[in-house]
């Protein structure tokens, strides 16, 4: 497991806490950067706004993206990530409560690498988080960015 960060885009503090718990339970030690909405997420990725000081070249290993976000929603964030040459290949996992077909299809159409529904049963969630970490942080080495 390398030390690259995980960008968690989530507005619900409960879900943030639970997600971090789930990572801890799976012994995922990567730093988790948490932003509250789409605007912050994009600012972080492109080192603008509040994150202007950040090194824009350093990208997270994976973006965990909720769909229902204030200001700019998850699908729009995904569209912009895929439109930008630097983040074109950045792994994005949609992590959401929604199980609507529409969201699922649109997410894949826009280039989401995976789509994970947050289960109510916390045990299941821990399992899912473990699988996510295993796949995106260990097995699937991120592509070299241009």
């Amino acid at each position, binding site marked *: 497991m390398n030390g690259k960060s995980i960008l968690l885009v989530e507005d*619900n503090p*409960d*879900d943030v*806490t*639970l997600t971090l*718990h789930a990572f801890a339970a799976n012994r995922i030690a990567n730093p988790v950067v948490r932003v509250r909405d789409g605007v912050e997420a994009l600012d972080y990725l492109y080192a603008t706004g509040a994150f202007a000081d950040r090194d824009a070249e350093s990208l997270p290993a994976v973006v965990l993206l909720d*769909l*229902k976000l204030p200001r700019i929603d998850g699908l729009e964030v995904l569209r912009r990530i895929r439109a930008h040459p630097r983040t074109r290949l950045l792994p994005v996992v949609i992590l*959401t*409560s*929604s*199980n*609507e*077909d529409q969201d699922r299809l649109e997410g894949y159409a826009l280039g989401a690498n995976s789509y994970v529904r*947050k*289960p*109510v*049963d*916390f*045990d299941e*969630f821990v399992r899912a988080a473990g699988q996510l970490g295993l796949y995106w942080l260990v097995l699937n080495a991120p592509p070299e960015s241009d």
Partner: protein
Amino acid sequence: MAKAEVARRSYPLRAVVMRTAAWWLMALVVLGVAFWMLDRGQHASTQRAIGAQQRTLIDQASSVLAATLQIPIADLPYLADRPAVRHWLRIGKPELLEQVAVDLLTLARHRPNYAKLRLFGADGQEMVRVNQDEAGPRLVSERQLQDKSDRYFVRDGLAQPSSSIHVSRFDLNVDGGRVEQPYRPMLRFGLPVIDVGGARGLITVNYSGRALLEQLSALSTEPAEIGVWLVDPEGYWLLAQRPEEAWAFEFAPSGKGARFGDRYGAAWSQLRNAAPGSTGQAEIDGDLFTWRRVLPAPADNHWQLTGPGADGWLLVTRSPRRVVAAAAAGQHRLLLSSFGALAFAMLPAAFVLAHYQIGRRQHWNRLQASETRFREMLGAVPDAVVILDGEGRINLVNAQAERQFGYRSDELVGQPAEILVPERLRAQFAVLSDTYLAAPRVQSLGANSQLTARRKDGSEFEVELALSPVATDEGGMAIAVVRDVTERRQLEQAREDARFRHQQLFDNLPLGIFRSSLTERMHDERHFLEVNPALVTMFEAASAARLLACCPADLYHDERQRAALVAELYALGAVTGRELQMVTLQGRVFDARMSVVMRRDGDGSRFVDGVIEDVSMRCAAERDRDRAAEEARRKAAALESANRELEAFSYTVSHDLRAPLRAMDGFSRILEQEYGDRLDAEGKSHLARVRRGAQHMAALIDDLLKLSQVTRRPLHPSTVDLTSMALELTASFDEREPKRSVEWHIAPGLMARGDARLLRVALDNLFDNAWKFSRKRDPAMVEFGSRREEQTVVYYVRDNGVGFDMAYADNLFGPFQRLHDACEFPGTGIGLATVQRVIAKHHGRIWVEAAEDNGATFYFTLGTQEAT
């Protein structure tokens, strides 16, 4: 006219020349054959004449030869019988020879052609010899007598019997081993004399042939070509056309052309074996030969002839081809010149013949063509044409007339014209006919009055008749053109019927129809030309006249509407479906719908045709309909908005309601794990209840969402393999709780047509149900299969679980309905409602059969699908 005709048709020179040549050639061939035969005849007769001449010559020569040679043949026996010779033979005294010499001398004096007369002894010694020359006979002295035993004719003569006369070859006398000059042609005869005592001698005569040959030669004087030849049996000439050709055997026996056969081979092979005594004649290689074999003595002679001369000689004449030709030449020339003259004379004759022949043929062809043209023209006329002679009889009809009247041409020709008229009208026709015949002129009948004609089968039809007189060589004739007007009359009737129908339509239509005049200036008033009864009624006029009298402009309620209508009409030529308000003559205003079109008359004046419909009723109805449609649109919009709200609600439920549940469950779990040591058993139990509640709530939400999805989702039908779908589902059940063992019996090959996703939801719920309620059975059994009921396939899912009382079955498919304790058999109570929705969306049916504690079977159908 005639000149123009001639000029137009050029003289057929080529044809005439060819034909002339043909005739002339034919004449030449015939003439040629005739003249050739004449010529042959002439030639043959010439040949016959020459042949006769030759025959005469040969006969004469043969007579001369025979007459000459019979003398020595007769003289020898005479000498042999003389007593002196007999005495000498018997006694043999030499002095007896004197008497013999006297006898020989005596005879010699009478025979000037006897060159020698001798008596030989048996040894060949001359006993007596008489020589004779121009001076006369002379006895040779005893001293001069010689031994001639070496001579062939002496040897042969002595050897032969006394009844035979030896005849030598006819040759030239040899004296001292050489041929004596001038030639002395010589023929020797010898007769042995034998005494009874056996003494033997020989008497010989040397006959000089010169006189004989000269006599023969003299026969062939004129013409020189027909000379007589004498040829010996070996083929040597003794007497030839030229003297040097004769006696070749004496000088050059094998010289070229020495023998007859060398020069005339074919002739020689034919005449060499000629029988003696008869004359032969033949044309050989173009030459005419006549020949005869002549023996030294006649065949019935007492004496037998021996020796080379015994076979006699051939007398031959030859007339060469050119001689015969020369004889016929005069005739031949005459024939040739006659032929030429006749051939020349034939040429004009052939030309005249050809000229007339070609001319006649052309004339005939023209006549034929003219006739054909005439008949074609007659046939092409669309009307029946009947040509009548001066007496009103039918002379000629065309094909159309045959068809029209149903007669064949030969049935009509020669018949009176009235045959074509119905019997009841014949009297009338006769008057008509007489009137015409009295003063023939072009006239047309039947156009105004009815003229009826009759067919062969008696049926009648209406006609028009045009009569034209024509003058012909055969007298005045009339051409009658008969037109069948049945069809025209029918058309007229049909037109009249159509007009009537249109009038009826015009009168009966429940639409106001009008035609009104329109002047060039826009604002001039129009007035009606035509109105139909519906329009009269519409405008509440007392009569059509009243409506026609009024001004159309007064019938508009709103002058502006009228002005707009008129302006548009002038601009576009037509206005369709204009709705405006009009006013009746009684002053009532009504809604009208008007369509008008502007037209121009033949003389340029304008008029308007229009249709007016009273749409007051319809307008009211339309207003109602519009209101209803508006209502429907409003409801649809409301429904759509409700649907959108529902979707938004579902989304919110799905997304937002679950978040707090997740928090409840998640934090309870964290409490349990991380703070569990600070809680007693009751506290832990309470935490567990919180979690169960949260999870049940989540399940409820999921199921409700699923139900709502089923309801909203449109059907995407395809062919679905239910068997493999069922196998996948059951596998996931087994995975979920590996400790339980359920016997799944899935029928193979279950196919259906439907929405795969929805069917999966339905099957999942049914299996879940069965799986759940058979929990207490061991072994638990779930069966999925199908059976056919008439046209419908009924699928079923059966379990051997706890079942239920059928009394409560009605409530089973409603949402949130439960028949069992939620603790014992957890569930949301939405599953079967969802299944029911899916089946209903497929136009199918679902029902259940169960008994308490005895399992349950859910049946469903999918419309009227066939299982495959």
